């Protein structure tokens, strides 16, 4: 079989795939490989960490989603799983670990405590959500969330990674968008953290909702 110049070359994905050629964008390749090899940081703060360990075990097996390589060093990881209550005493260390991670870096706030303080919200020693100091990509509610829920949060993060843009005008890939994100580490002073939140990342709404009569 021979081609002549008059014949039209079929460039549809089906026919090129048959010929052993894949056409794709660089973004797609980049995101596909990145999202299927997320290396989480190995650290746990409270009971959510037990569910995280369960997710890494053989029954739920986070390796099916390419995120089984828990790194003991923030320098080698892409994903920070804030698994558990962030006490005020622990918050500076969590922010410092986040600062040590290289870009691109993502954060999953796992469990009610990491999102808002959860059942300990009104406690004198608990931070009301890690999103007050570092940007959170996926919020995973639950107390604690089951391993299935953590896997779903990971899949949600993968979806987010697959939609990011590295090339072109509207870059959304955090590794190329701006420099490495480093946030000021809060200081423990008096009876609270200073500052109480990082206005760069989070600000309270202008008016507290439901403050007049509560939500009961």
């Amino acid at each position, binding site marked *: 079989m021979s081609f002549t110049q008059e014949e039209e070359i079929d460039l549809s994905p089906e026919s090129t795939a048959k010929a052993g050629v894949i056409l794709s964008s660089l973004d797609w390749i980049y995101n596909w490989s990145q999202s299927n090899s997320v290396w989480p940081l190995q650290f746990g703060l409270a009971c959510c960490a037990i569910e995280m360990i369960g997710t890494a075990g053989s029954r739920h097996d986070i390796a099916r989603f390419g995120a089984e390589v828990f790194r003991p060093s923030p320098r080698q990881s892409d994903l920070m799983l804030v698994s558990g209550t962030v006490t005020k005493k622990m918050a500076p260390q969590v922010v410092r670990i986040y600062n040590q991670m290289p870009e691109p870096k993502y954060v999953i706030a796992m469990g009610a405590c990491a999102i808002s303080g959860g059942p300990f919200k009104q406690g004198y*020693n608990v931070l*009301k959500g890690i999103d007050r100091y570092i940007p959170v990509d996926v919020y995973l509610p639950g107390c604690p969330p089951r391993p299935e829920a953590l896997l779903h949060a990971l899949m949600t993060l993968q979806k987010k990674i697959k939609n990011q843009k590295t090339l072109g005008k509207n870059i959304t890939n955090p590794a190329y968008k701006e420099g490495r994100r480093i946030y000021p580490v809060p200081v*423990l*002073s008096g*009876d609270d953290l200073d500052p109480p939140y990082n206005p760069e990342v989070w600000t309270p709404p202008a008016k507290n909702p*439901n403050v007049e*009569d*509560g939500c*009961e």
Partner: protein
Amino acid sequence: MEINHEAILTQFPDLEWEEDTQSLIVPPEKAVEVVTWLKEHPEMRLDFLSCVSGVDYPAKEVKTKARNEEGKMEITVTQHPEKMEVVYHFYSMEKKIGPLVLKQRVMSRENSTVTSLTPIYRGADLMEREVFDLFGINFTDHPDLRRILMWDNFEHHPMRKDYTPPNDYDYEPTPHDDVIERAQEREKEREGQEA
């Protein structure tokens, strides 16, 4: 198995046994002597210190209603003075008896100092530090008395009844009970700052 507290009171006649709480009240200056005896006496052998807790009692009035002799209702007001307590729970592994509840009581909240039992029971070390941290009760003769849970430059003792945590109720999407009040306070504070 119960501990025979009569034997303790025979040995130390000036101690007080509180029936309400089934506990032995020991003044701080006698604590070491009493506890050493309890640990070493062959009938007691309280070799295990299970728990150390702090309790804060602010001064308060208690009103009770009761019928008097003429059959009329009468309200009696009792004044409870302020006090601080450190409660120790002892067991004996050897004799299989316990618990013995022993309290060191101080009648002052501002200047509360009790005697550390760490030189006798090493297990008391961290628990007494916790009581010091959260209640502000000082322990004399403690080898390493510093904060354990809160950070070193923390200014208050958070488990004291009169402690109010900082008002950071900026964002309370589901307020309830006293959270509503504090959120409203905070709202006013923020309005004042803006004005």
